[in-house]
C-alpha cells in the first residue's frame, strides 16, 4: 500500500510540470505585454519607464527563461501581487479557500448521502413507478443548467416565501449572536448554495449508482449467494452493494473539477466570498497574477482529489494495488 502511494505521488511530478506549462502558455496568450496591461492606464508613465519596468520583471528575456523564473517563484509559493489592491495573491486566496472547500465538501456529503440510497432503491425496484419517475426526474435534472435552478430556488425560497436570506454567508448582526445562533445563521445562508451545487452532480451519481447496482446483481457471485441460501438482505447489502459502491469512490473524486467550476457561478449568484467569486472578479479585472494562481491551485486540488480517490479505491479493492 505504501509503495503504491509513493508510486502515485512520484507520478504527480510530471503532471505538476504540465499544469504549470499550460498555465504559463495561457498567460502568454494575452495580446500586449503584461506590464503594458498594468500601467497602460497610467498617464504618468513614459515609454522608457515601461521598458525599465519590463527589465525589472524580466519580460525582455526569452520565453523559456521567463518560464523557469516564474516556476522558481511558484516553488516558493510566490505568485506575485494582485493588480486590484496590491496585496499578495496567495494571502487573498488562502483567506477565501475555507468557505469554498467547506461548501464543496458539504455538497459531496449531501450527494453521497442521498444519491446512493436513491440509486439502490431505483435498481432494486427496476421498472416500478418510483424507478420510472426518478429516471425522468434525473434526466431533467441532468439537462437543467444549475445556475438557472439556483435562480428559481432563490425566487421561491428567498423572495416568494422569504424563508432564507438571499446572499452572503452571515447576517448583518452576526457579531451579536451567541454560538447557536451563529451556527443557525450560517446554516440558513449556506443551505441553498450547498443544495444547488450538490444538484449538479446528484443526477449523474444517482444514475450511475443505479446501473452499477443492476450490474452487480447480475454477477455470478450473487447466484452463488442465492444458491447457498443467504437472506435477500445479506445478498443486497453485503455482496451486491459493496461491489457497486467501489466505482463511486472514483466518481466522487472525478466530480471535484465540476464542483469547483460550479463554485464560480454559485458564489457570484449567492454573493459568497469564496475562491470562485474571487476568480470571477479577477477575470473581470484581468488580474493576471490572481487568475494564474487560482488556475494552478484548482488544478492541483483536482489532482490531489483524484489521488485520494485512487488511494481509497486501492484501499478498498486489493486487485488495484497489486496490478502492474
Amino acid at each position, binding site marked *: 500500500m505504501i509503495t503504491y502511494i509513493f508510486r502515485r505521488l512520484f507520478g504527480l511530478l510530471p*503532471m505538476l510540470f504540465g499544469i504549470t506549462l499550460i498555465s504559463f502558455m495561457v498567460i502568454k496568450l494575452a495580446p500586449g505585454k503584461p506590464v503594458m496591461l498594468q500601467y497602460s492606464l497610467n498617464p504618468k508613465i513614459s515609454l522608457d519607464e515601461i521598458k525599465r519596468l519590463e527589465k525589472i520583471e524580466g519580460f525582455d528575456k526569452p520565453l523559456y527563461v521567463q518560464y523557469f523564473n516564474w516556476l522558481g517563484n511558484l516553488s516558493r509559493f510566490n505568485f506575485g501581487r494582485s493588480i486590484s489592491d496590491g496585496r499578495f495573491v496567495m494571502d487573498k486566496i488562502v483567506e477565501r479557500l475555507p468557505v469554498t472547500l467547506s461548501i464543496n465538501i458539504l455538497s459531496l456529503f449531501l450527494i453521497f448521502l442521498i444519491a446512493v440510497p436513491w440509486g439502490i432503491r431505483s435498481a432494486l425496484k427496476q421498472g416500478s413507478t418510483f424507478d420510472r419517475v426518478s429516471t425522468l426526474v434525473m434526466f431533467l435534472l441532468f439537462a437543467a*443548467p444549475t445556475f438557472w435552478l439556483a435562480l428559481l430556488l432563490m425566487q421561491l425560497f428567498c423572495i416568494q416565501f422569504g424563508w432564507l436570506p438571499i446572499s452572503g454567508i452571515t447576517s448583518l448582526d452576526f457579531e451579536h449572536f451567541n454560538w447557536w445562533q451563529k451556527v443557525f445563521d450560517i446554516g440558513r445562508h449556506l443551505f441553498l448554495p450547498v443544495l444547488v451545487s450538490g444538484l449538479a452532480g446528484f443526477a449523474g451519481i444517482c444514475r450511475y449508482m443505479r446501473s452499477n447496482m443492476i450490474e452487480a446483481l447480475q454477477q455470478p457471485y450473487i447466484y452463488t449467494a442465492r444458491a447457498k441460501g443467504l437472506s435477500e438482505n445479506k445478498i443486497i447489502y453485503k455482496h451486491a452493494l459493496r461491489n457497486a459502491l467501489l466505482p463511486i469512490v472514483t466518481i466522487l473524486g472525478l466530480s471535484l473539477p465540476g464542483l469547483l467550476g460550479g463554485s464560480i457561478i454559485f458564489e457570484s449568484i449567492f454573493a459568497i466570498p469564496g475562491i470562485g467569486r474571487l476568480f470571477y472578479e479577477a477575470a473581470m479585472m484581468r488580474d493576471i497574477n490572481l487568475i494564474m494562481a487560482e488556475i494552478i491551485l484548482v488544478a492541483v486540488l483536482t489532482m490531489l482529489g483524484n489521488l485520494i480517490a485512487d488511494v481509497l479505491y486501492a484501499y478498498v479493492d486489493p486487485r488495484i494495488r497489486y496490478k502492474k
Partner: protein
Amino acid sequence: MQNKSLNIGILIIGFLTIIAILAPLVSPFDPSVIDQDSLLMPPSLKHFLGTDTLGRDLFSRIVFGARISLGIGLVAVGIATLVGLILGAAAGFYGGRIDGLIMRFVDIMLCFPTFYLILAVAAILGPSIFNIMIIVGLTSWMGVARLVRGEILSLKEREFIQAEKSIGASNLRIIIRHLIPNAIGPVLVSATLGIGGAILLESGLSFLGLGVQPPTPSWGNILIESKSTLGVAWWITVFPGLAILTTILGFNLIAEGLKKKLGG
C-alpha cells in the same frame, strides 16, 4: 424495435433548428428594439413571453438566442471532436511513446476544471462568439480522445486491419479509411452529449458576462437580467432557462437513442 428517445430527441432538436434558421420570420418583433411603453410586461397575447427591462420582446430574443446557442454548441463540438479524433487516433494507432505523451497531455488537461480555464482565456482574449467557440472546443476534446484511443486499440488487432497491412496500405489510409469509420459510433454519441454540454458552458459564461455580449441575445445573457428582476418578473428567469433545458434534453435524448441503436 422502436426507438422512442431518439425520435423525441430528433423532433425537439429539429423543431429548434428550424426556428433558429427561420428566426426573422418566426419572431414577431425585432429582438433588439427598445420599447419604452412596454417595460417588464408579463406574458400576453402581444408578447407571448413578456418583455424585459428595456421593453424588448422576450420571445423574439429567445428565438434569436437559439441561433447563437445552437451555433456555438455545434461549432465548439466540431472542434473538440476533430482534435479528439486526431489525437486519439494517433495515440491508439502508434502506441509507445506517442501514446504516452498524448495520454499524459489528456490527464493534465483533465486536471483543469474546464470552467476556470475557459473563464481565464475568455478574460484574457476578450469575449466574443468566435473566441467562445474555440475556447470551449479546445477545452473539451479529452473525452473524445480517450474514447477513440480505446476503440482503435481494440480494432487494431482485428483481422481486417491485419489484412490491410499485409497488402501494404499506408498508415494514414488504414486510420482514415478503416479505423475511424469503425470507431465513429461511440464518438457520435459523445459528440451529441457534448453539444448539450457546450451549450451549458456557453450559457454559464454568458450569464457571468464573459460570453456572448449584449445586445446580441443568447440564452445565458438574457438570464443576467433575471437576478435584478427576481421578485418582479418571473418570466425573464423561467423562459430562457426552459429553452436551455429543452435543448439539452433534446440532445441527451438523441445520444441515449443512438447508444441504444448502436447496441451499447
